[in-house]
């Protein structure tokens, strides 16, 4: 039985137009409350990569919206997503970030659950009557848990479509990233970098494929990364301030709020800069051997990043993925997981993992400047005289492709996010 949440003051159609959304989406706590229910509990949410918990009994803790959950492998190596809440009085049964265990013992009264979530020990059981049954008191499981190439998603709503259908065309883009691994597998056991920011979660999901901001926000980072070589094509012209947005790539919006960004100028096989990294030459040989020269060329040229609404991001050429946790209307936390390519030379993997910090950590050269914009928006949207946030850029340039994919520029992807936002909010806000 779920608690029906009433949000009668939220009229979704009044808040979202094709080319704009109302500022309340970012600053109104009641909308945040509604989102946690209508969005995060009614679609596929990323919970972890299979390589994080490879052995029987391995687990990690994470969140589905605001629900604390445990992602755990049982002795048959099946992955379960368990609500991290003792069925007795509600305490977390696991405080650890990750580990290995056969059982979760509640620290309050000692109720103990196996790693399939079944209640196996009730302490001093004699205190309960003869009708007391433990059968219905296992940890609550997410009804649906599925993965694509090791990326595990869960849904608290059993009515959603299968993950493979939900991802649709996104699988093609994920393959472009994951096939960079000569073995086809990645290993996400290089820890995590965490950052937080005092602003709304949707700024980050917009930002992942915001092709318009990069040249401006990351001007100093691009200037640095361009040193020792040509000026980054994404850096503004030092004299005119103009930048060649159209020449530097495009974005696509897929169904279910999924977005991709393709940066043109991703190198092909012959110009791949990674070839000069430690282990880079050996890596390229492996890649060509496993994929063939044509596919290898395509993969190295596909400088893409993908955002899977509402909480997953991947940037294969910087070998990491990120997971979003919405905390409050003005509080968001992100964990960035560098990963290694299984089978690639250690020296190459090492360099790629180091480079994740360079851009993406709280002390990185790139990411913090994005967060600064989010915070400035959170503050600026307090202005009551201006109600709307604009996403009209590139509306006249869109191209409709098969499988519901819309290719465009800049804010095409944000319009896609808010179509999905509207769909879920209309359906599930009551």
């Amino acid at each position: 039985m779920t608690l029906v949440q009433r949000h009668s003051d939220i009229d979704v159609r009044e808040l979202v137009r094709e080319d704009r959304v109302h500022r309340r989406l970012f600053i109104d706590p009641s909308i945040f409350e509604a989102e946690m229910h209508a969005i995060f509990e009614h679609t596929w949410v990323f919970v972890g990569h299979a390589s994080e918990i490879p052995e029987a009994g391995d687990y990690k803790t994470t969140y589905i919206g605001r629900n604390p959950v445990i992602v755990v492998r049982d002795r048959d190596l099946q992955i379960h997503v368990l609500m991290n809440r003792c069925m007795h009085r509600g305490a977390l049964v696991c405080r650890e970030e990750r580990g290995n265990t056969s059982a979760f013992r509640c620290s309050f009264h000692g109720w103990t659950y196996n790693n399939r979530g079944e209640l196996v020990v009730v302490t001093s059981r004699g205190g309960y009557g003869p009708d007391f049954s433990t059968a219905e008191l296992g940890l609550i499981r997410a009804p649906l848990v599925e993965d694509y190439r090791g990326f595990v998603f869960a849904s608290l709503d059993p009515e959603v479509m299968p993950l493979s259908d939900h991802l649709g065309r996104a699988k093609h883009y994920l393959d472009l990233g994951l096939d960079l691994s000569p073995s086809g597998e990645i290993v996400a056991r290089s820890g995590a970098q965490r950052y937080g920011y005092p602003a709304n979660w949707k700024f980050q999901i917009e930002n992942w494929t915001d092709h318009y901001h990069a040249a401006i926000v990351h001007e100093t980072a691009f200037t640095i990364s361009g040193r020792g070589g040509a000026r980054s094509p994404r850096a503004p012209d030092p004299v005119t301030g103009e930048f060649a947005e159209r020449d530097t790539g495009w974005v696509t919006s897929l169904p279910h709020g999924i977005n991709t960004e393709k940066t043109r100028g991703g190198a092909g096989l012959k110009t791949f800069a990674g070839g000069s990294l430690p282990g880079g030459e050996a890596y390229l040989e492996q890649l060509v051997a496993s994929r063939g020269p044509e596919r290898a060329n395509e993969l190295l040229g596909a400088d893409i990043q993908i955002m899977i609404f509402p909480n997953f991001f991947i940037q294969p050429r910087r070998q990491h993925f990120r997971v979003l946790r919405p905390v409050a209307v003005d509080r968001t936390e992100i964990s960035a997981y560098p990963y290694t390519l299984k089978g690639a030379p250690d020296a190459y993997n090492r360099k790629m993992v180091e480079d994740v910090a360079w851009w993406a950590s709280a002390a990185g050269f790139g990411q913090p400047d994005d967060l600064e914009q989010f915070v400035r928006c959170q503050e600026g949207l307090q202005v009551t005289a201006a109600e709307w946030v604009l996403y009209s850029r590139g509306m006249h340039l869109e191209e409709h492709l098969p499988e519901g994919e819309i290719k465009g520029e800049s804010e095409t992807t944000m319009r896609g996010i808010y179509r999905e936002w509207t769909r879920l909010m209309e359906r599930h806000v009551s």
Partner: protein
Amino acid sequence: MPELTRAEAEDFLYQEARLLDERRFDAWLALFTADGRYWIPSGRGDDSGLEAHLAYDNLTQLKDRVWQLQQPRHSSQSPPSLTTHLVSNVQVEPHADGRMQLYSSFVMYELRKAQGGSGEPRSFAGRFEHLLRWEAYSWRIECKKAWLLNKDLPIFNLTFLL
């Protein structure tokens, strides 16, 4: 090759903190050896490189960092972070090849004067490990490792220098 007393180590660390707090970044950079490293670990602080770091700068990258944080268009440092470092609990241990390992604890306050800012300084705490090498008649930093207490928790805007 000289040994370093605790008093001398304290002088070195206090001077380094002062250079940072007074934003004398070129003088601060000059404390590092050519192969110097500025390292803010997360996780175990493993340098196998297969683990995430918050920062792992060689000298070129550290110079880039110092350049970036002074750029008006680096918006996470516009306005800039004002900082006050307090360094304490200093210990000195001889290290291989005549180098000296310094252990210390730090607390620092950071504040950006911006509209919308809370006006409250943020505080950061942790431990420093400085590996010093005698070079060109002075002690220089071969590696500065800053272990933040909250290295594995979400941190907002760490674009100033620890």
